[in-house]
């Protein structure tokens, strides 16, 4: 599909054009970059490594209403996701887009999840290639991704210096490219080749890696292995590794009632929390952080690939960067390899 050119001095205009949709883009909030709803293109910060919190909340909000009700009235009012309108996520990293493609499999598996899938349908995803690996703990290339990866994206932007190469990847992407056409120009003929070289250079700068070959098959056999106790010993059970993970999709469902009006809502939950699996009887099949850590790693690297043929980790490195006690998933995986 055609590659176009977006001059950097036209980015503000292009963003303005896109703000007729619900526009989500990276913006500075205090000292961190977060994907936020943009009203003023000036807020957008494209000069960033990666956002602290992945943009998964755009299609899978941290808390969302499933239906509303009035106590005593049998009518249940289903949440209409359509009201949220057409959305553009602008400038996310290829790993985070790929995470959406991975999580899509879960939410469309057998029972279709109407809330998630409707939002996905309404959302166009515009990625920003990683010319430089955003973090020292990036390892996307070990788990099937690339700093210039296209999976999960509708449109890919690459920073070419004084302009962005804009490549449409899907029908949705072409449509958006069309919307932006007045801000785009023809791209130089040798851009495609240049992008290929830049991708190779960026891949070369990724410092961390793991050979995942055989890990999914090996994990179930390590059930009773000592390593789980060792790798979870310092874990605080804070759950940040799962909340900041772009592929973590587990949720809780809770009912809330105030002054006779209520809603059933779902909210992110974490397999690292002690109450996550506790039965009404009080029995907990995963009573300690050892079992919970084992489940987190096994879910991503064994159970998910067994069911959906893809590892549920995109190598963004957030769980390593932000763990308060420096637990490192690559260290755990290398112990799995050595066990």
């Amino acid at each position: 599909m055609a590659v176009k050119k977006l001059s950097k001095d036209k980015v503000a205009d292009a963003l303005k054009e896109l703000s007729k949709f619900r526009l989500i883009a990276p913006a500075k909030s205090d000292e961190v970059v977060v994907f936020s709803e943009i009203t003023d293109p000036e807020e957008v910060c494209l000069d960033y490594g990666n956002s602290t919190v992945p943009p998964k909340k755009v299609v899978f909000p941290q808390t969302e209403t499933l239906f509303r009700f009035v106590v005593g009235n049998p009518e249940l009012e289903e949440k209409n996701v359509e009201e949220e309108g057409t959305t553009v996520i602008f400038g996310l990293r290829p790993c985070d887009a790929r995470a959406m493609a991975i999580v899509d499999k879960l939410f469309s598996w057998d029972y279709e999840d109407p809330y998630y899938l409707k939002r996905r349908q309404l959302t166009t995803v515009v990625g920003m290639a990683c010319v430089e690996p955003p973090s020292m703990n990036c390892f996307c290339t070990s788990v099937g991704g690339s700093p210039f990866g296209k999976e999960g994206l509708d449109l890919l932007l690459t920073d070419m210096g004084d302009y962005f190469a804009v490549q449409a990847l899907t029908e949705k992407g072409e449509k958006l490219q069309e919307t932006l056409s007045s801000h785009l120009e023809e791209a130089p003929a040798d851009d495609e080749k240049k992008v290929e070289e830049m991708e190779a250079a960026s891949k070369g700068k990724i410092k961390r890696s793991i050979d995942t070959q055989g890990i999914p098959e090996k994990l179930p056999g390590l059930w009773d292995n000592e390593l789980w106790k060792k790798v979870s010993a310092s874990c605080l059970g804070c759950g940040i590794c799962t909340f900041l993970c772009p592929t973590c999709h587990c949720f809780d469902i809770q009912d809330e009632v105030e002054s006779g009006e209520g809603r059933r809502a779902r909210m992110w939950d974490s397999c690292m929390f002690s109450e996550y699996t506790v039965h009404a009887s009080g029995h907990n099949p995963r009573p300690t952080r050892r079992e919970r850590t084992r489940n987190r790693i096994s879910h991503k690297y064994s159970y998910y690939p067994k069911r959906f043929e893809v590892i549920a980790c995109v190598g963004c490195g957030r769980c390593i960067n932000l763990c308060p006690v420096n637990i490192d998933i690559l260290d755990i995986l290398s112990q799995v390899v050595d066990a």
Partner: protein
Amino acid sequence: MKNPYIPYEVNILDAWYEVPGDRCIKTFKVSFADEKVWDSWSHLPGQCAMVGIPGVGESMFCISSSPTEQGYLRFSIMKAGKNTSALHELEAGDSFYIRGPLGNNFPLEEWKGKNIVTIGGGIGQAPLRPVIQWIRDHREDFGELEVIYGARTSQDHCFKDEFEELNSCGDACCHLSIDVEEEGWPHFVGFVPTLLMEVAPKPDNAIAVTCGPPIMIKFVLENLEKLGFTPDQVYTTLENRMKCGIGKCGRCNVGHLYVCKDGPVFSYAQLKEIPEAFA
């Protein structure tokens, strides 16, 4: 396609206590508030539903009636937490909400022509009841039906009248037990796995189905092996904390299997491969 998170309202036609006391069990006989739901509803023995009240919550329960019992569904629910306590407050004429049917079922089609033995303990008889009822309603399709059931005391037995009726009509041979001696108890005294060895069903052309507390299941499985049952002749159900019931929310997994969607019915052959199954 219907939104799988939106429950149906059901009206309680009848409700009664199976078991009194702290861990009381109440059975609800319900029908859809909107009669039209029956047109699209179909379930099989072993399948479950999310049962709850908006504003309180939902929990997963097996449907304890067989689809051959028409015009109603039954749920037998032990009072254990917030949601079940709220459900226990309800009486005939009240309503609650259900989502389902969810999960898989006992493969009764595959069991045609076989002898069936059910081994239940306590509230674990709830998922076995629809199996027994299904067999009674397709009696010519199956061989002998042996029903083994025990609870801590005679008061803790669910579906008391039904066992008597089962025995007297000749559809099944029932063997009942209580854990500790009671005056006037005419049946076996001891634990269910011991009663199983007393009854000693033959494994030839047979299927064994067991549901009950985890410790009972553990010894029942061991004893079935001693009796010569192979793991693919033995079925059980698992339970875990659940929220969505449709394989999305993540928490009910044992290994790579979701109890809510891939289960609750598993063969022992399947579970032997999964160390977390009996955690």
